[in-house]
């Protein structure tokens, strides 16, 4: 798998939101939502992206799909540079890259029947006749575990899990190869989560899908992902396959994150690494290593030099001076 050219290649991606101030609305500072992220996603794999709220996971996903303009860096999809393309040029690629959203209640237009919502995507991207479109939509509904008679229903007639299935059908409608799941199961009950995860896995094998699975839920990410990227304050902290990250975490932030997972075995004590202080503001970005303000093992040079993104063992990258 590693020898294949990657499906998606992100290089030194930066996404800053300007803070404007003064009378002439000058840019006085930037919120560094994504700060120098490089990653590769290979065909057919699931890349999990974890990190606490506000660490830039969702922004990364949205920027990759062209929903946000990047500030710097490049995004290549199947070798074509798609970063900073106009909407018109991007449309060709949008067919291949889809997104599943977090909130199944907010991500469907309340005034549109779900059949029409799915059909609309086919209208945008294909030249199918009305009848063919309807057949395709019914296929999709069945594929994601709904019934074809759900075609004429409005979103408010569905439960959260069913709506998320509609969201999945929408992402699937144009046969994409990459799907960004932005907290796709976080808003659901645990039992429904399991069903949706199962569905996502099934669809992955039947359609040869590649997922970027963004979540703050470490257990779900572990279950879903082949490789896991840990993000902290817009930057990459550690990347490796699931085993490497979960069994042999190197970065102190990853260790702290993993130690916060509640253990199901009572009485079994595990040392918990508690981080002190709050997440620094992305508008007042720390110098050197972004994590040095809270890092339990930080040395003086951590505040000055930004750690390199280096490979410590095969496929296991980490950004830390002390590893």
């Amino acid at each position, binding site marked *: 798998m590693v020898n294949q050219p990657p499906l998606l290649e992100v290089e030194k991606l930066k996404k800053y939101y300007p803070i404007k101030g003064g009378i002439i609305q000058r840019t006085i500072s930037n919120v560094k939502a994504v700060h120098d992220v490089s990653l590769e996603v290979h065909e057919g794999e699931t890349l999990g992206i974890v990190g606490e709220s506000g660490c830039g996971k969702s922004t990364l996903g949205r920027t990759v799909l062209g929903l946000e303009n990047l500030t710097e860096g490049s995004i290549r999809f199947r070798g074509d540079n798609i970063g900073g393309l106009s909407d018109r040029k*991007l449309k060709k690629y*949008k067919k291949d890259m889809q997104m599943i959203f977090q909130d199944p209640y907010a*991500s469907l237009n309340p005034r549109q029947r779900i059949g029409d919502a799915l059909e609309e995507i086919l209208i*945008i*991207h294909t030249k199918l006749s009305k009848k063919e479109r309807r057949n395709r939509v019914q296929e999709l509904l069945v594929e994601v575990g709904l019934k074809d008679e759900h075609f004429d229903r409005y979103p*408010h007639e569905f439960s*959260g899990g069913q709506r998320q299935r509609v969201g999945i059908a929408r992402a699937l409608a144009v046969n994409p190869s990459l799907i960004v799941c932005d907290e796709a199961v976080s808003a659901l009950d645990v039992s429904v989560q399991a069903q949706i995860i199962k569905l996502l896995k099934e669809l992955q094998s039947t359609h040869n899908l590649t997922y970027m699975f963004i979540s703050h839920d470490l257990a779900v990410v572990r279950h879903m992902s082949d490789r896991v990227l840990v993000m902290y304050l817009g930057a990459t902290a550690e990347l490796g396959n699931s085993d490497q990250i979960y069994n042999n975490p190197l970065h102190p932030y990853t260790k702290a994150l993993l130690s916060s997972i509640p253990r199901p075995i009572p009485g079994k004590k595990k040392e918990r690494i508690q981080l002190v202080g709050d997440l620094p503001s992305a508008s007042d970005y720390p110098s050197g290593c972004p994590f040095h303000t809270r890092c339990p093992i930080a040395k003086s040079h951590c505040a000055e030099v930004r750690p390199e993104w280096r490979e410590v063992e095969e496929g296991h990258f980490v950004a830390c001076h002390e590893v």
Partner: protein
Amino acid sequence: MSADIALNENKTKPPKKEKYYVQTIRRVLKNKLAVFGIIIIFIQVILAIFAPLLVNYGPYVQDLSQTKLGIGAEGHFLGTDNYGRDMWSRLVYGARISLIVGLAAVGIGLIGGIALGLISGYYKKLDGIIMRIVDLLFAFPGILLAMLIIAMLGTSLVNVVIAISIWSIPGCARIVRGSVLSVKKQEYILAMKSVGASDIRIIFKHILPNCTAPIIVFATMRMATAILSTAALSFLGLGAQPPTPEWGAMIAAGQDFMWDAPHMSIIPGIAIMLTVFAFNVVGDGLRDALDPNMNLDM
């Protein structure tokens, strides 16, 4: 009420089969005042449509032998004016004028206001310019702006329509812009962008249908203002000219006979009052019925 609770309540409710608009109408009908308003508007519409069938005399027919007859006079149950014209007939034809002028003015105002509101709400770059122009229009008191426009164009009912519609545009643009801004942030708009939908498609298929509630309320309320303004302008001699049976013009004509024939002014006055009142209470009822926060307890 927090969003969590709202979600839970939705879950426990059995799936609703009724269409959204059916529900809304049902809720409006629970409001007694709004029902009263609807009845008045309905009567007015009937009068306007069937005017020729409902009167015995034309609105312009003079009978100088029977001037200034009071209410309840034989053959003229609302009396006659100073030229002996039948007040009932003039009142009924006046309803026609008021409704047509109101609908036309509000319709044109809505088209302009919705277009501007959608553009300025959706395209951030144009927002500043459009909203400053709207501010400029807002700076004039409404009736003054209308008078200014009529002074430039000349006095006629058509110009009244133009004046009132121009004056309706800024209010409508503001309201539409506000709802566009809130709908635009919804995740389903982002979802449509992520599948590559064009701006036109997003605006007309996804944003506009979700902004209809405030637009409907605005239009209803605006009908009241438009009818009142038409009457006011005609009263001042800037709108409908005599002998047109326009309510405002009728009040003006009755001014000189306030003592010997007060019904000449009072009857159209009551008609204006009732109509404006009706549109306002219906607007209020619609606003309450369309308020999304009310969905939970109904």
